[in-house]
Each structure stands twice: as C-alpha cells, then as structure tokens.
C-alpha cells in the first residue's frame, strides 16, 4: 500500500506539473483539493485521466463515490487497490 501511495504521489506531481513539490511533501491523509495541496477542478479531471491510464481503473466523473476516492492519496490508493483485486 505504501508503494502504491508513493506512485500515486509521483503521478500527481508529474501530471499536474507540481515542479516544486516532492512526493515526501504530500501527506497521504491530507486533502488534495482546495485545502492541502490546493488543487482545483481541472486538476481533478487531469488526475482522473492519468489514473485511468496508469492503473486501468474506471472512474465515473459524476458519482459521489468518485469524489470520496479523490479526497486524499490514502483514499485513492484504497480505491485503486480494491479495483485490481
């Protein structure tokens, strides 16, 4: 799970061009959007596409669950792990 969290952090930094941030700077439990990293709705869409591509998971852009999955790195890792089981 820790490896998965690390690769999600790397993916976030790469696909959102967060040049000044290192994977270690991202708290797995912290909120990704608005607070915490300060990402916005365009980042959410961008990250959704990158995650679909890298982990071959399906995301429904409108669902309430998707919003929960995207709340932190930890919840994203939990979701991706559950899809590949």
């Amino acid at each position, binding site marked *: 799970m820790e490896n998965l969290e690390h690769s999600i952090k790397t993916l976030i930094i790469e696909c*959102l*061009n967060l*040049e000044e941030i290192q994977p270690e700077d991202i708290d797995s439990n912290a909120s990704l959007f608005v607070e915490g990293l300060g990402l916005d709705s365009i980042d959410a869409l*961008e990250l959704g596409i990158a995650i679909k591509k890298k982990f071959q998971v399906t995301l429904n852009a409108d669902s309430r669950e998707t919003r929960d999955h995207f709340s932190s790195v930890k919840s994203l890792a939990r979701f991706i792990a559950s899809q590949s089981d």
Partner: protein
Amino acid sequence: MKNLVNLSVESCSAWTSDPRLSEASDTPPDAAGVPPMIRRRLSSLSKIALSVALECVEGQSVEYSIFCSRHGELQRTTGLLQELAQGNELSPAAFSQSVHNSAAGLFSIVLDCPSTSTSISAGADTFGYGLVEAAAHLMLNPGEKVLLVAFDEPPPDIFGTASRDPAYGVALLFSGADGFPSLQLRLQPAADPTEATEPLALTFLRFWRSGSTAGKAPTNRIIWEWKRHDNRH
C-alpha cells in the same frame, strides 16, 4: 495618408529566438513572475507573452490591454487535435488554455486587473493592427495607459512553410504622457504587395531599438510607417 495620434512609449520589453536582435536568447522566458500554481499550466507561448507583459508593466495597472498573435495557441490546439485523432482523452488543463486569448485572461488573473482587453489576429499585419487599436483607444481615452503584447511561436511543421518565423514576444506600454519617446503611426495600402520576411513586431522592434527617426515595413496588404520623436524634457 493620415497621421494617427502620437503614442508615448513608456516602456518596451522583448524576447525573441531571432539571433539578429539584441533581445535574442536560446532560452525561452519562464514567466518567473507568475505564481507557481498558475505557471505550471502555461503553454510555452503564454510564458513568452506573460514574461514580456509583466516585465513591461512592472506592477503598474493598465486601463486597456491588446494581445496580438498571428497563430495564437496553435501548437497546443494541434497537439489536442492529434490526441483526438488517435482516440486519446484530452488533457483538461491543455484544453482550458488552448484559445487565442489564453494569455489575455491569464494576464488579468495574475495582476488581479479587471480592465478591458482585446485579442487581435490579422495575418502578417497582426502587430500593425494592434498599434492601430492602441492609437484609437488613446485618441478616445487620452489619460489612460494601454499595454500592447505581440507574441508568436512558429506553427507546427504540419502547417508547412509558415513555420520559419522565429518565436518572439514584444510588449509596449503606451500613454499620452509627456517625457517619453513618442511613436507616430501612418499606413497606406500596398500598391505592390510584398511578402514580409519576418514578423512585423520584430521589424518594429529593430526600428525602435535602432534609435532611427523613421521606419517602414511593407506587408502584402499595407505599408506601415513609423516615426519616432524623442520628447525628453
């Protein structure tokens, strides 16, 4: 032939990849003055436009800004179309800044400046019509400051011969104030159409930096004439 209003040139900032100009550099500007969370999404073209624009205004507010680009975000648009042709999903961040007035919108966000702006694309005469727009605005609003930003990158190779132009950004801050060198603009239809060999903004920059009092640039439609007066008191 009619003279238009005199434009006081308060400031001029430029970058180009054209080695014949003193502003030339191989390293494109990185828009360091733009906050990182905004800068990370900028195209290379928007970085050029914002770098010269921010350097030119130095934090001053302007009442009107004119963004002039012949090709606009064509590199980004072409990239998106190629992705689409391959059946890939498009990058929302790239899509959100793939329009001609991306740089104009970003400039107003970065400076928190809600003033009016316009975007111009007019073929080889793009920069010239930007000057006409600036002159017209200052004629009606003589107390205001007007920023003109001209910027372009060569279009992608798929567009063929038009790709030979260098990348550049030229920003000029105009007003009606005394104490600055002033620019007088004249234009007339070209009787003998000439294909311009470089972007008009770079021909102007060469003239303006040379200190000459008169310059001329024919395009295939118009002969642009510029006169410079040094009004320092």
